[in-house]
């Protein structure tokens, strides 16, 4: 007959340990709640308020801001129609973000593969080279691109000097410029997760595929890509989400006309003086991002439960 188990003191020790862990995390959580998560709730509240005359808000509940996100009222005859300007901007944002994801994928995949297939010694050097642009100022990189593609920039000067063009190509202040800028800025964000996946690739599987009569392209399509899919998905998310909320790049490269969602939001807090609308647009952006993230988590979970390709 065994003596009764002393679960009481063990349980108490465990609870004390958990309490200590909460205490350790508490300062960080407080700061983050005050200056990151908490304010988001305030944004949500603001989106239901009324715009003040000189900026700021008046504390009255109203759905007007949300209405303005999607619809507009004709000032003369009060007909309601879709808010064209907003929808154009939304469409531009989604379109450009998607295209950026695709271009970074096209350029990033071979780059990640290249780094992953270097010898272990030189691999570190290549990683270092791709990490540096990642840690340099976003503004600097955007500015650098601007300098290169503007009418008096390097590309046009060189092309003109070679006699290939008679007049400078207008690249700046177009959707194309924004696409180039975002691809340039977010390329490392696609390469790094892809590289992480590829580094773990067991090349014996590739050998096996060749042994079974696959061509290079088939090896790529049927063996390599499926295995590095997690990195692919992670990289796409890491590019798509920031692109969607981009502010600096479209502002510098797009001029005032080619606005993206980020610029539209900023407008409401500047000249537009419609803080509730800005708040509503921000929440809308956040909602889209959450949906994309949910989709990502779902895909990862499905992959983990051993789904066969």
């Amino acid at each position, binding site marked *: 007959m*065994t*003596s009764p*188990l*002393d*679960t009481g003191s063990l349980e108490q*020790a465990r609870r004390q340990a958990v309490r200590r862990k909460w205490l350790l995390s508490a300062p960080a959580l407080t700061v983050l709640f005050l200056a990151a998560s908490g304010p988001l709730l305030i944004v949500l509240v603001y989106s239901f308020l009324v715009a003040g005359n000189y900026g700021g808000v008046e504390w009255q509940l109203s759905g007007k801001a949300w209405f303005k996100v999607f619809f507009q009222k004709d000032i003369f005859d009060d007909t309601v129609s879709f808010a064209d300007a907003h929808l154009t901007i939304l469409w531009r944002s989604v379109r450009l973000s998607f295209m950026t994801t695709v271009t970074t994928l096209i350029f990033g995949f071979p780059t990640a593969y290249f780094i992953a297939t270097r010898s272990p010694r030189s691999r570190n050097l290549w990683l270092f080279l791709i990490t540096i642009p990642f840690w340099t100022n976003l503004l600097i990189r955007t500015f650098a691109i601007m300098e290169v593609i503007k009418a008096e920039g390097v590309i046009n000067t060189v092309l003109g000097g070679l006699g290939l063009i008679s007049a400078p190509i207008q690249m700046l202040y177009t959707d194309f410029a924004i696409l180039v800028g975002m691809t340039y800025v977010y390329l490392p964000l696609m390469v790094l997760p892809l590289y992480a996946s590829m580094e773990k690739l067991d090349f014996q599987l590739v050998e096996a595929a060749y042994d079974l009569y696959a061509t290079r392209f088939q090896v790529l399509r049927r063996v390599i890509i499926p295995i590095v899919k997690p990195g692919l998905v992670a990289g796409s998310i890491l590019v798509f989400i920031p692109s969607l909320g981009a502010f600096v790049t479209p502002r510098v490269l797009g001029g005032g006309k080619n606005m993206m969602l980020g610029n539209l939001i900023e407008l409401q807090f500047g000249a537009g003086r419609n803080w509730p609308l800005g708040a509503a647009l921000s929440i809308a952006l956040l909602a889209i991002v959450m949906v994309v993230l949910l989709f990502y988590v779902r895909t990862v979970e499905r992959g983990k439960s051993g789904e066969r390709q």
Partner: protein
Amino acid sequence: MAKTIPAIAVERVTKVFGAGASAVRALDDVSVTIRQNEFFTLLGPSGCGKTTLLRLIAGFDHPSAGTILLQGTDISHLPPYQRSVNTVFQSYALFPHMTVAQNIGFGLEMLGRPKVEVSETVAAMLKLVRMEELRDRRTDQISGGQQQRVALARALAPKPKVLLLDEPLSALDYKLRKEMQIELKRLQNETGITFIFVTHDQEEALTMSDRVAVMSQGKILQIGSPREIYDHPAERFVADFIGDTNFLAALVVSAEGRRAVLRLSSGSEVGADLPEGMAPGMVEGGKVTAAIRPEHATLMTGNGDLRGVLENIVYFGTDTHYHVRLSDDAAFVVRSQNLRDSAEAFQTGQPVEIVLKPDAVQVLRD
């Protein structure tokens, strides 16, 4: 007559991990007394609970029930830094950011000993394990065998009352392991500290220990000197785990005190020892399993206690193993040393008889 206090007394200790349906009983009502200045070994296969028991003695976990006494004081719920017990870890756990000397002196530093005492003890320890030239090396720059000795010195430096060793030799190659076994025994003798040694290697346990506790599935099956364990295993598991054994089905004809008379499958009767805890009255007339070591049996052509057919002869250089199929279809192995000009030459397929050495048959508890 003054009774010496045991170094460690484990009283009815149970350890349960998890809860409810998935609870695991790593130790089940275990009791054992370890004497001062003893080299005591916990022996068993992985998962038997030996490491768990060691961790409870060291203080890295608390028993779910029962008490642990260190020289009479209850330490069951004391944190490890308040127990005068030190551990040599299986992975050595040397601090990589400190030199050999700093590692060895760490315990004394933590106890607040004056710097002079610390450096003197460190020097003495380095001499003890013969690592003086490496005192200022960083621990990730020395070999596995050297790391092991540093781990040993580090644990001995604070002069603990008990030293715990968690399979410290498992990562060493054969030759180094043999050297370290001798080394450990020497250290234990010189320092006079009680050693509690954990291993799954029965050969190690037999060669080094004063006493061995054989464990399986959270219980201690038998405690005794190496000779006792080997010659008189009380349970089937112990007999099987240590060395080679033959198992015989037998009928108890009569039993008295610690002896019994068994009738074997061949009809012959032999004398056997009864294990502790088996009263003569319990077994008289009943069926039991008996064990006998292969080297305690001799192969003959006639006049044996068992009859069978020789199936296989395996030559091992120093010995020869004879695999016999007995008349009741059981398997039996006879081991005989290859002395010069051993008289009889046997052949496979030949009917043979086996003589059992008297006093070598052991009745098993299960």
